[in-house]
């Protein structure tokens, strides 16, 4: 226990790094996936290849990616950029399917009337299509956020891993406390992030949880 007290600074530092490494890729991935998904619904032939390609990307082992990226980007092996790029790739590969499915979930008569009342193409996407896609997109966001939080720890193998570095520390010193602290904190992080996302979704989509219609005549 005294180890925790003595190393609060270190733990806090790793926690912050962990959060940063996990969340920034989610944000970047979302920014990339939404326009990409929109293009895929405009040009329908693109959708399935994109989803399939995302599936392949996601199946790449993360360690391989952490090592290959510096070679491709010319970044230092110990740069956090590597982790961020790798996790952004994972995020996009997962989220693209949800963005496409979400945009496809807009009922045809809603889309038809959005066009007919005079929304321009881009305005329609922002004001009608995306809001309706939010529940489906958020399902993906929740999965990818939790996945990223757990995947950051793998980066510890190459020296940057947020709370994962507590694992390496523990193994090196054959000492369990840092490992337990790391596990508990990353679990807590994942849980809190999920609660925040669920709350955010509820705030964004009050319409999605209204009661079914009351039976009334016309």
């Amino acid at each position: 226990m005294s180890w925790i007290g003595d190393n609060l600074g270190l733990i806090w530092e790793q926690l912050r790094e962990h959060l940063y490494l996990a969340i920034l890729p989610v944000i970047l991935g979302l920014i990339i996936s939404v326009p990409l998904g929109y293009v895929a619904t405009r040009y329908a032939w693109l959708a399935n290849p994109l989803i399939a390609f995302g599936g392949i990307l996601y199946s790449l082992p993360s360690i391989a990616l952490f090592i290959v990226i510096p070679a491709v980007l010319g970044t230092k092996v110990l740069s956090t950029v590597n982790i961020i790029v790798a996790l952004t790739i994972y995020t996009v590969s997962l989220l693209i399917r949800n963005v496409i499915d979400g945009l496809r979930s807009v009922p045809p008569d809603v889309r038809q009337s959005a066009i007919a009342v005079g929304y321009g193409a881009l305005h329609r996407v922002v004001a009608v299509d995306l809001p309706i896609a939010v529940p489906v997109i958020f399902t993906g966001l929740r999965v990818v956020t939790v996945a990223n939080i757990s995947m950051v720890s793998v980066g510890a193998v190459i020296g940057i891993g947020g709370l994962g570095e507590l694992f390496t520390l523990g193994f090196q010193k054959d000492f369990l406390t840092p490992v337990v602290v790391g596990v508990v904190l990353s679990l807590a992080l994942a849980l809190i992030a999920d609660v925040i996302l669920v709350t955010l979704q509820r705030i964004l989509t009050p319409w999605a949880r209204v009661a079914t219609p009351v039976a009334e005549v016309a």
Partner: protein
Amino acid sequence: MIEFEDVTKRYPDGTVAVDKLSLRIPSNQITVFVGPSGCGKTTSLRMINRTIERTSGTISIDGDDINSHDAVTLRRGIGYVIQNAGLFPHKTVVENVATVPKLIGWDKRKAHGTAMELLERVGLDVKLAERYPAQLSGGQQQRVGVARALAADPAIMLMDEPFSAVDPIVRHQLQEELLRLQRDIGKTIVFVTHDIDEAIKLGDNVAVLRVGGKLAQFAPPAELLANPADDFVRGFVGQDRGYRALTFVHPDELPVKPLPDELALQDGVPVGWRNGSEELLPLGAVFKRGDSLRAALDAVLTSPTGCGVCVDDNGKAVGVIDQSTVAEALRS
């Protein structure tokens, strides 16, 4: 006036949805496009607001080619009601109705104020304004759809099978209300339906289209029933067109006979027929002075005594008619 001149829609696969359609849709009236599926009625309607672009021919509104402005601006000036209403599920009722006013730049307060007025106008409880579409019945959603189409006070309203997904009772109410509303607002309404009865009931003019997108006949409903242009129209308007044509016969004054003793009244309002026993026989349908001959005949046919009861605006009985009265009115 909306004018179609040699308008054709051919799809890339070669299907011709609309074939050289030429017709004039008069302003401030209801014009109904009716026909079997595949006759191009919806395609024709959607070409007016350019949600479907025609292949050739011209469409003009009051002499102005619809292609002389950009499509988005054109659409904001044309109301649009679709089957199932097509309401935005993520917007409240009042936000849905205020859509077009906001798109054309009204401030939120004015847009919402107008939206509230329109909700009342289409017969909706304003308490529903803050609900979401999923919380409304089909009939209520359809009313919101009509209010949304009218919000920016467009001269033209397009209605694409708006009432075909609701049950017959609600459909009847919505039709009556559309007619009542139209008496106030006098819009140029183009209405698409596959239901000839709906076309005859609502239309000032009816365009009957045949499969392949050709115009078979364009006429007021009474004319359509009396003189179908060909076998297709005759078949489409149905077997009992003679009876339905009575809808358009409004005898000035049917000579009514005095109320018979058998008619049971309560404060002057007819409630049933006496036949000697405790129980009254059911009254049957009644008709009002000025109603069509179809309503009068219906009263005769549904009455257990063969006497149709005529009532005044307060529902009080003023007299009765029988089959011979109707027959006499038909002969004259």
